[in-house]
């Protein structure tokens, strides 16, 4: 958990061995409400920092998920496509969206750590 980072758009990324795992935060799933549909990027897709990477739809609205760091998509979590309710149940756990091989590890420096993100949430 030590190297989990957060974006202002409520995505999280956790890096291990040059590969980042990306998901949305618990706050984000709470704001969305019941998630009913998830669309993930194709494996191999090159993403720039801040690009639209995935789509998540709830009964209230459809939202885009942006990648907090650039890289090439190496794996996606089919389980949340098959059962979108997982995003509500375990947003910051098993319901990760995709993994990507980091293009530029320095980008992690632009993101917040847990304490900074929690403080940011208090300002919303």
């Amino acid at each position, binding site marked *: 958990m030590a190297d989990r980072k957060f974006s202002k758009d409520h995505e999280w990324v956790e890096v291990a061995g040059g590969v980042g795992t990306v998901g949305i935060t618990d706050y984000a799933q709470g704001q969305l409400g*019941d998630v*009913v*549909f998830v669309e993930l990027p194709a494996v191999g897709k090159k993403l720039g920092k801040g690009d639209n990477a995935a789509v998540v739809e709830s*009964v*209230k*609205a459809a939202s885009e998920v942006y990648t907090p760091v650039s890289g090439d998509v190496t794996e996606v979590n089919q389980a949340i496509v098959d059962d*979108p*309710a997982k995003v509500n149940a375990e947003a910051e756990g098993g319901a990760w969206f995709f993994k990507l091989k980091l293009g530029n590890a320095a980008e992690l420096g632009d993101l917040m750590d847990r304490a900074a993100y929690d403080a940011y949430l208090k300002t919303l």
Partner: protein
Amino acid sequence: MSQNPHGTVTGNRGLQLEEPLIFEQGVAGRTGVDLPAAPQVKSRLGKAARKGTIGLPGLSEPQAIRHYTRLSQKNFAIDAGMYPLGSCTMKHNPRLNEKMVRLPGLADLHPMQPQSTVQGALALIDTLAHWLKTLTGMPAVAMSPAAGAQGELCGVMAIKAAHEAKGDHGRKVILVPESAHGTNPATAAACGYSVESIPANERGRVDLDALKAKLGPHVAGIMITNPNTCGLFENDIVEIGKAVHAAGGYFYCDGANFNAIVGRVRPGDLGIDCMHINLHKTFSTPHGGGGPGSGPVVLSAALAPYAPVPFVVHGPDGFKLVEEEAGEAAKAFGRLKGFHGQMGMFVRALTYMMSHGSDGMRQASEDAVLNANYIQARLGDIMTAPFPGPCMHEALFDDRFLNGSGVSTLDMAKALIDEGFHPMTMYFPLVVHGAFLIEPTESEHKATLDQFIAVMRSLVERIKKGDTQFLHDAPKLTPRRRLDETLAARKPVLRWRPAAPERQAAE
């Protein structure tokens, strides 16, 4: 009927009758009409022959009539009560419109009749076009788009054609404000543009400096709704137009909310290049209240040459339709729609214009704005408005006044249904948290507005007293209670299937 919540033997609630699906009522062999047995002939259908029955329900004529009548009684429409669906302009559709559109000389026309036999219809299109140009202060109009979204497509295709005609192929971006209707970015994307969003300022308007920072030789144009989807007039619109033009782009105005400013503002005076007009909103006949959509697009002199065919011109022998992309239509970007547009809507819109007159149309806009401001003022002390100041044709509230209560915008909407009101638009525009977008239109008189306001105030009172369960349980008085929208989206049941195995092949 063991689940019957009304305590009646039948499950009916007074004269509001329970009604099963028509397929559940069908009895094989029952019919409203006796037909002679079909003659036995050799089938020539080959592999196309039907393999099973088609599963039509067997019903008597009164059963069929009652079924649809009962369903219709469960419906709600602008003809039944107040329908304050923001952004939709659910105004009354005057019955004079319906009388005019049913005149045999208009209703019985065929779009492929020789032009010499439909001069009156062409004159009607031309007259409506004249008044649309007059009301908007624009030199040209494309009449054929079938609805607002197709009007947007028409406008953005004209913008694209204009850039390409100048040999300018480097413009790949359309700018769209955060609060835009979803159709705006969808239209830009459909035309091959990428979309960049412009943030709003603290007053709910386009942030002019942020917009200027995004302009450049890569920007094809901008799409702005005015008044915008927060029900606010974009005060900087003239400045926006100048900045976009200075950067070589074109200015698309989404005219979905033109109903707020008819007779008060001519969009042409604001520097726009094109704007669609929802005839079915601004000139009555809303969704389900009159006809289909119709979205003519007014065009500036810069974009007029690229307007789609067909269009009506004055020829030596009367009115003429230009249907080919040649001659005066050589630069037309193509054809958007079969035939000439939504003729029935043209008749209704022109009837509305001529029966109201310029003073009447102006008053309709003013009354729509007055009604919305009355609601905003009477609810402003107990609900929370995201932006300061008066509104245009719709009053917008956010859900801050619900903070900590556990009650959502959705709960409030459901409780309105029990009181006999169609809910307002909720959770749109997306830029406002838990939005309530209330558009009363000019059709509602003060007594109805007061009743609506009294209901909203009573609901907020309940919340203050802690009676929130009442709102979570709503609606209680409807034919069906609150639906499980999550389950419906996650596990939709999209078709009825017969219980009996022998009807498995049924459609």
